[in-house]
């Protein structure tokens, strides 16, 4: 399609939607699907049909609405009334459109003015829950592909990069490297072949942000990648998706096909001279493949083992060509930046961390689900206002950054969430998993849990990580069994230093983080396990009589 046709499609589809009485959105993200959302959606569609309102009411499946703990969710009245825990028996009421019929649902209606919604700022998730991820026209009606059109017609590649630099966007994959600078590095390389890679390997246990973006708004990521391709001069992109994300893979495949058919991807994008193709690569269950050099090896069909950097991928990446690797959420931020300008984006957040961040709330918290807040929001706001607090028990720690991150104790609840502040208190922003623990969690066992993860996921290439994680896990395991000494604690700290300073890649370098941060704030728990052979949280089963 041409740009005129794109505008026409947007106008036509918007008009069609406005002519309807109502659009009913059924959340069909992975969370709600596992509570029966598919059946519910079919039941509502059936009811609409049998009540003869097919021409007036449209039932759509959408991406994640955020409140996964209350699924399956249905948003009725074109996005003004949200219902939780809906069952197929509610379908007639929802289909009728008569407010009186919907009364039985009143107690399950979720207040859209609750802090959960009002405290959020949705940029990346703007379309999640409002757009059918399987319909290209829905995305176009919401303004989709306009940014790509604008970039291709109004901006030269260096101007696109300038806009991204102005926005202050930093990589959302964990390290927070300024995205504009990375793009500039790749664009300056002189090479006929360059690649764009979208890192969708989201391996942190406890994180599902990228998954929700891909499931709920796949076209946004494609558009962001195409803009990146235009900016740095690449013609080919790859999305490396975790193999476990079946639904995301399926929706991406559909989205790529749709975009290619309409010439929004492919050899002549929007009938211009710019061509960009995107292919999927499916991961096969290795956390380390999220590391960029391992990811490259994996796309090349090899064992996913990291290699020494430099050379960094912008100089020599996929098949030794300049390669731009960004996270899903990073790419998802691009279309709004091009649409509204870098300055607009930079006005949100803190001086060093701009924009918003998506977090996956999980653990001992009332509203488990997906949220998006401006950078710099206090942890307390996220956990207690938006998250609804701890259902039972008392807050003990929040864990960010997964196996590379740390635990944040109560005294830091007022810390603003941005890259620097979190690093200062011994954790990291990470990719956005936020897990809440109450006083039933033993911090030694939490450290052991993460060390076990790193041990299982270590690729085995370098000795400190391969053998060091085994030893650290062994010490932590013995601590939880009441079979460790002060010497073990000293060795644990020595090993932490070794892994941090000598490991080849980020996995080994950050593997000691959970240990070091729990040692920093909960050292007395370690000492109780060692000296008194007692677990203060009452979690570890230390049996009497086992020789200490």
């Amino acid at each position, binding site marked *: 399609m041409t740009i005129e046709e794109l505008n026409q499609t947007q106008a036509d589809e918007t008009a069609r939607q406005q002519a309807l009485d109502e659009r009913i959105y059924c959340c069909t993200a*992975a*969370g709600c*699907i*596992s*509570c029966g959302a598919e059946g519910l959606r079919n039941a509502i569609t059936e009811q609409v049909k049998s009540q003869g309102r097919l021409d007036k009411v449209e039932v759509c499946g959408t991406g994640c609405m955020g409140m*996964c*703990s209350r*699924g399956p969710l249905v948003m009725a009245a074109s996005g003004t009334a949200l219902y939780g825990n809906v069952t197929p028996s509610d379908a007639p009421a929802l289909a009728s459109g008569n407010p009186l019929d919907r009364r039985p649902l009143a107690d399950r209606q979720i207040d859209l003015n609750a802090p959960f919604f009002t405290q959020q700022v949705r940029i990346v998730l703007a379309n999640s829950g409002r757009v059918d991820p399987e319909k290209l026209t829905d995305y176009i009606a919401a303004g989709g592909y306009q940014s790509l059109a604008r970039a291709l017609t109004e901006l030269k590649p260096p101007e696109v990069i300038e806009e991204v630099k102005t926005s202050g966007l930093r990589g959302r994959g964990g390290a927070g490297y300024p995205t504009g600078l990375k793009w500039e590095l790749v664009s300056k390389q002189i090479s006929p072949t360059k690649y764009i890679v979208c890192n969708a390997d*989201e*391996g*942190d*246990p*406890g*994180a*599902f942000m990228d*998954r929700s973006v891909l499931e709920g708004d796949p076209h946004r990521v494609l558009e962001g990648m195409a803009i990146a391709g235009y900016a740095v001069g690449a013609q080919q992109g790859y999305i490396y998706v*975790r*193999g*476990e*994300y*079946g*639904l995301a893979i*399926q929706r991406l495949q559909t989205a790529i096909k749709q975009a290619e058919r309409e010439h929004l991807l492919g050899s002549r994008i929007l009938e211009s001279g710019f061509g960009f193709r995107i292919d999927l*690569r*499916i*991961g*096969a*269950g*290795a*956390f380390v493949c999220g590391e960029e050099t391992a990811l490259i090896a*994996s*796309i*090349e*069909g*090899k*064992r*996913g*083992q990291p290699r020494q950097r430099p050379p960094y991928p912008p100089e020599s990446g996929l098949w030794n060509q300049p390669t731009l690797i960004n996270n899903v959420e990073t790419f998802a931020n691009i279309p709004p930046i091009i649409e509204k300008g870098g300055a607009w984006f930079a006005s949100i957040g803190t001086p060093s961390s701009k924009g918003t961040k998506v977090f*996956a*709330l*999980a*653990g*001992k918290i009332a509203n*488990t*689900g*997906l949220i998006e807040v401006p950078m710099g929001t206090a942890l307390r706001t996220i956990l207690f206002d938006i998250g609804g607090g701890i259902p039972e028990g008392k807050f003990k720690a929040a*864990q960010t950054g*997964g196996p590379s991150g740390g635990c944040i104790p109560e005294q830091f609840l007022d810390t603003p969430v941005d890259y620097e502040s979190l690093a200062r208190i011994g954790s990291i922003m990470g990719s956005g*998993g936020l*897990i*809440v*623990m109450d006083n039933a*969690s033993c911090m030694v066992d939490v450290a052991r*849990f*993460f060390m076990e*993860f790193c*041990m*299982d*996921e270590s*690729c085995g290439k370098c000795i400190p990580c391969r053998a060091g994680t085994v030893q650290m896990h062994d010490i932590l395991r013995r601590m939880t069994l009441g079979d460790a000494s002060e010497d073990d604690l000293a060795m644990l700290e020595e090993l932490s230093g070794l892994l941090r300073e000598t490991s080849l890649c980020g996995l080994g370098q950050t593997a000691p983080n959970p240990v070091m941060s729990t040692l920093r704030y909960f050292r007395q728990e370690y000492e109780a396990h060692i000296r008194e052979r007692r677990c203060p949280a009452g979690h570890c089963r230390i049996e009497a009589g086992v020789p200490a």
Partner: protein
Amino acid sequence: MEEWRFAIQIAAFSGRGDPTPIAETEKPLPAAVKDNRDKLLERAMSRHQYSGDALIEVLHTAQELYGFLSPERLKTIARKLRLPPSRVLGVASFYHFFSLEPKGEHTMVVCLGTACYVAGALGLVEVLQRRCGAGSKVSVQTARCIGSCGLAPAVIADGKILARVTKASLGAELDRIG
């Protein structure tokens, strides 16, 4: 022949090796696919011009079609993609998604991601280990976060996600499949 196959299995599954995570959309294959598996695998390889770079895609396809990667299958793939056999096995054994031995009739994958761990998933593993010992029809596996943290603790039973599983509800599910 038998002897070295045994050696591979021991090597790949001994020690702390993390069991294979599985896709949530696993479905039984329709007969039309089942009868044409060899052809479908061949087509997948030719679609990638028999390039060694496509090894992982080809292994994915092979596992989808046959359920697991037997030594014969790996040998065929190595020959067709012109790769050293040791490299093919090296790749197949690096990724936990690929399974080098057939799976049981039913599979139960307990998520041990952080959220599920905090919600007590270890207790579920205990139940499964107790009830599905040697000779059971159910293969018990664990996965590192299936991305359903909002539903913790989660278990994937034969490809279907069970949300907020308790020891009791897990027991009931086991009774159901027998």
